């Protein structure tokens, strides 16, 4: 037996996982042997984003644990097994499957369970709660046979559950006992505005309703009867009437509980037994249960530190929240109900735009106590910091919530005013000081900063503020990040793009003369060639553009390691006729090219010498092929699955849409390559969620995903818009891609572009869907121009005698390069290795 300390964790939810992570990262980790019970059939997943399950995020996507992470760190997981009793004197825990495990330290992270009010009929079929992935799967199955759904409870979770019912396509009712929605977090005014906005979305809200019975319905499965005599019929019923701490084990083993449940803990998260800790939603600290993840995370760290004999304490947590409910921004800060004696309130109500804002301030107007925001929560970060850090208010505090219509910019606070201890990211407990340290340690772009500190990686609400801290620090360090693309142009790619557009510059030499110095290089030349092509779409081998092109663009093929090229004709959507396949086979055979199916659903022919390219392409073009732009920073492939034409699950013709997308954007020159895919249903055989623009067919339209990629740092695409018709989908794609082309940095994929954008996906939606910048018409027009001027560069090239001269091996000889040597392998050619070839040096 090892003499390691045995740590047992009961519950592998969000907080339990955080605790394991903290242990793994603790310096003495090797001195511990850690085991966790996991009642659910899945290891820890992200409950906060649970609802995204209905927008296409799979159980795997929601997982908080990288595959193999626990194994790699020697953590044993009793998956699908539940702890059923604790023997504190023997220091053992018994599991449902009969295992008995010893512990030195025990951690209870059992979370909470949904409270189901004991209304007669509450246990009928088709009644659900909303807590686990299993719950959601059960709901999903029931929704297939349902038309109407109702949620009992109009709090934060109830409204999220209502959104799920809407997403499942049901007529949705919300039934709340209290006279307003989200009674805990927001006030009457905010609740009224929220109700109006939710009803605009077609959800029926019933307030002040006391449900007395659930029985058989006439038109639906259930009939709910209320104290006032009214009735509502519904097929599915969801209870979201609050949570209760999961404290049964603690109760049975005689640990101290609160009067209304919850395992009592001290500042170190120890229960009444010093070797037993409780963290997360099952723990009762100072008479409170915290139903949010951030305080739970803090407890996890505190308990871990205490087990490691390090100093740390839980001292309470702020319960402010900002969320998006059915697309509506709602936020609540501090003393939202003005319970502080003599507190004063300022309210702003905009009935047209349906915005409600309230701030609560101290009697003397000097400090912010709380706030409620509905419809527009952009001020959340600023207000939260003001209240948390006791920052003096401006002379007229109402300026904080009044709209800034004169263009003078918000009166908000400069992040500079925040003390180092100010918590910027509450989910991951990251302070301003820690961010500043990371910046000075070299994390000078947003993506690196979030990676280094974890700030912004959970709910994302703090991202704008993290960005502000970053910029502020850079400025202070006098470290203006040099964003010049190279020594020849003191500009970013984005600035160059604007110069080219605005001044209508058509050639590199003009741009260099007006805005650059020197003669250019392998960085600025191809970048500017790409910008010129995105703007004016001239033939890339015009004499004035020729010398700018990377060799791949100059010879319209990808150079391989031995100086030969690959030939990739477009096979849009991966669809190809047998005749065309035969042509590819014949060309491959005739020119003795290595032939391979690519990862992009098309066929690549390798080993073509420079001088063979025109002849090969002539034969391909004669057979109806066109260039695949595999050489360009441009649209690559639009992968498709076979879709509704053949597949029994297909919801729509994914091949046709893939073809449309590929033909529309082919040739579009961009900061980096662009990839797309269309799947015919949620099984996602085309892997659309790993693409810059991915599309998945639904029963009622197309779901659009954006900013994903595979490659070096894979990133799942984010769901951007749902159930679009084809026309809208194409419109959004036009706008999105053109916006990317215009504003991204050189060699920045859409994912990094978006991650570095203040406001991220929400901002992008505002620009692309709500046209918040008023540029959409222009973006569409510019895209239309590129589409209208498309040309197959290979066709233009082989039609031009003079251009063909470029492909001679030598300007003074037609002799083939004797240094290109092939050998045979598996029936095809490959470049000879050094040891297989006679030494040739110059």
């Amino acid at each position, binding site marked *: 037996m090892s003499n390691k300390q045995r740590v047992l964790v009961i519950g592998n939810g969000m907080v339990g996982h955080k605790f394991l992570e903290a242990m793994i990262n603790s310096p003495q980790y090797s001195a511990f042997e850690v085991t966790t019970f996991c009642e659910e059939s899945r290891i820890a997943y992200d409950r906060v984003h649970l609802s995204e399950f209905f927008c296409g995020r799979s159980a795997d996507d929601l997982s908080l644990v990288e595959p193999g992470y626990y194994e790699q760190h020697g953590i044993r997981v009793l998956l699908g097994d539940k702890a059923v009793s604790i023997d504190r004197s023997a220091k053992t825990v018994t599991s449902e499957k009969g295992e008995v495990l010893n512990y030195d330290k025990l951690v209870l992270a059992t979370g909470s369970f949904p409270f189901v009010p004991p209304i007669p009929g509450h246990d009928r079929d088709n009644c659900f709660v909303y807590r686990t992935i299993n719950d959601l799967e059960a709901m999903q199955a029931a929704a297939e046979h349902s038309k109407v759904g109702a949620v009992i409870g109009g709090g934060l979770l109830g409204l999220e559950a209502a959104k799920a019912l809407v997403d499942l396509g049901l007529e949705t009712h919300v039934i709340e006992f209290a006279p307003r929605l989200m009674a805990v977090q927001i006030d009457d005014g905010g609740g009224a505005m929220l109700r109006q906005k939710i009803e605009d979305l077609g959800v029926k809200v019933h307030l002040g309703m006391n449900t007395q019975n659930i029985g058989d319905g006439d038109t639906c499965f259930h009939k709910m009867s209320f104290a006032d005599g009214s009735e509502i019929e519904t097929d599915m019923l969801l209870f979201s009437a609050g949570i209760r701490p999961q404290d049964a084990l603690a109760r049975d083993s005689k640990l101290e509980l609160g009067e209304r449940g919850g395992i009592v803990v001290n500042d170190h998260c120890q229960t009444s037994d010093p070797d037993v800790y409780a963290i997360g939603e099952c723990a009762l600290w100072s008479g409170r249960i915290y139903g949010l993840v951030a305080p739970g995370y803090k407890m996890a760290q505190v308990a871990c530190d205490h087990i490691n004999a390090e100093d740390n304490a839980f001292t309470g947590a702020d319960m402010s929240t900002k969320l998006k409910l059915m697309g509506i921004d709602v936020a609540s800060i501090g003393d939202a109900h003005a319970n502080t004696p003599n507190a004063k309130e300022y309210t702003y109500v905009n009935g047209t735009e349906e915005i409600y804002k309230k701030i609560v301030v101290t009697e003397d107007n000097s400090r912010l106590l709380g706030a409620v925001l509905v419809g527009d929560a952009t001020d959340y970060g600023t207000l939260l910091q003001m209240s948390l850090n006791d920052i003096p208010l401006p002379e007229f505090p109402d300026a904080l919530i009044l709209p800034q219509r004169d263009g003078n910019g918000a009166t908000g606070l400069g992040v500079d005013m925040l003390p180092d201890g100010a918590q910027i990211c509450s989910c991951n407990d990251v302070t301003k000081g820690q961010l500043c340290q990371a910046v000075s340690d070299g994390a000078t772009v947003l993506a690196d900063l979030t990676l280094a500190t974890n700030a912004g990686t959970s709910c994302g609400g703090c991202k704008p503020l993290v960005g502000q801290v970053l910029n502020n620090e850079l400025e202070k360090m006098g470290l203006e990040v040099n964003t010049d693309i190279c020594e020849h142009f003191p500009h970013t790619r984005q600035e160059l793009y604007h110069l080219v557009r605005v001044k209508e510059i058509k050639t590199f030499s003009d741009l260099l003369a007006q805005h650059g110095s020197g*003669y250019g*290089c*392998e960085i600025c030349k191809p970048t500017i060639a790409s910008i010129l092509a995105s703007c004016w779409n001239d033939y890339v081998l015009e004499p004035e553009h020729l010398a*700018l092109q990377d060799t*791949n663009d100059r010879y319209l093929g990808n150079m391989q390691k031995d100086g030969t090229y690959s030939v990739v004709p477009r096979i849009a959507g991966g669809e190809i006729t047998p005749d065309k396949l035969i042509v590819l086979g014949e060309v491959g055979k005739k020119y003795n090219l290595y032939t391979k199916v690519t990862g992009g659903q098309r066929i690549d022919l390798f080993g073509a010498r420079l001088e063979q390219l025109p002849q090969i392409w002539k034969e391909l073009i004669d057979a109806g092929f066109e260039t695949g732009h595999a050489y360009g920073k441009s649209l690559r492939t639009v992968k498709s699955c076979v879709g509704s034409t053949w597949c029994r699950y297909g919801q729509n013709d994914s091949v046709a849409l893939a073809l449309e997308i590929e033909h529309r954007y082919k040739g579009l020159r961009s900061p980096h390559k662009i990839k797309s895919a269309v799947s015919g249903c949620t099984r996602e055989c085309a892997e659309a969620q790993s693409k810059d623009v991915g599309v998945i067919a639904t029963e009622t339209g197309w779901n659009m995903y954006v900013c994903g990629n595979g490659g070096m740092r894979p990133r799942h695409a984010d769901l951007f818009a749902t159930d679009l018709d084809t026309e809208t989908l194409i419109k959004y794609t036009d706008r999105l891609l053109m916006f990317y082309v215009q504003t991204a940095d050189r060699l920045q994929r859409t994912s990094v572009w978006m991650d570095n954008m203040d406001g991220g996906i929400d901002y992008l939606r505002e620009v692309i869907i709500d046209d918040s910048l008023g540029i959409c018409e222009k973006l569409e027009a510019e895209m239309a121009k590129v589409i209208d001027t498309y040309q197959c560069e290979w066709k233009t090239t082989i039609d031009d005698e003079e251009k063909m001269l470029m492909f001679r091996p030598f*300007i003074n000889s037609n002799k083939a390069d004797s240094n290109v040597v092939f050998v045979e392998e598996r029936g095809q050619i490959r470049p000879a290795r050094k040891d297989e070839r006679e030494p040739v040096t110059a």
Partner: protein
Amino acid sequence: MNDLTKKAQEDDVTTDPNWTGICNLQDLPLNAGVAALLHADTDKETQIALFRTSANDQVYAISNFDPFSEANVLARGILCSIGEQLAVASPVLKEHFNLATGQCFEDESVSIATFPVKIVDGNVLVAG
């Protein structure tokens, strides 16, 4: 008349057996490279890369062989200015070579051959 042509006419080179006539000056694209063959089909056969630059109105000849990728590709690289110096970036892995001296910028220990160039009556001649 262009400087190069004038300079070339000052010494009589046409008789020197070391010089090989390659092409007309106009055949060379501006600021982009082309490959050429010296002493084809002899044991002195050599591949060179020629660059005609508008920066200083010059023609440079360097070896076409990229010592890093061991492929004959330098003529297909992009012409760069690094400070005051002119260079070509290898199209394979982007190492830079000084057009005038052949010196590699990234690795001091590497340099490639350069060749004298003269323009006579609009003909490009290379020695080596």
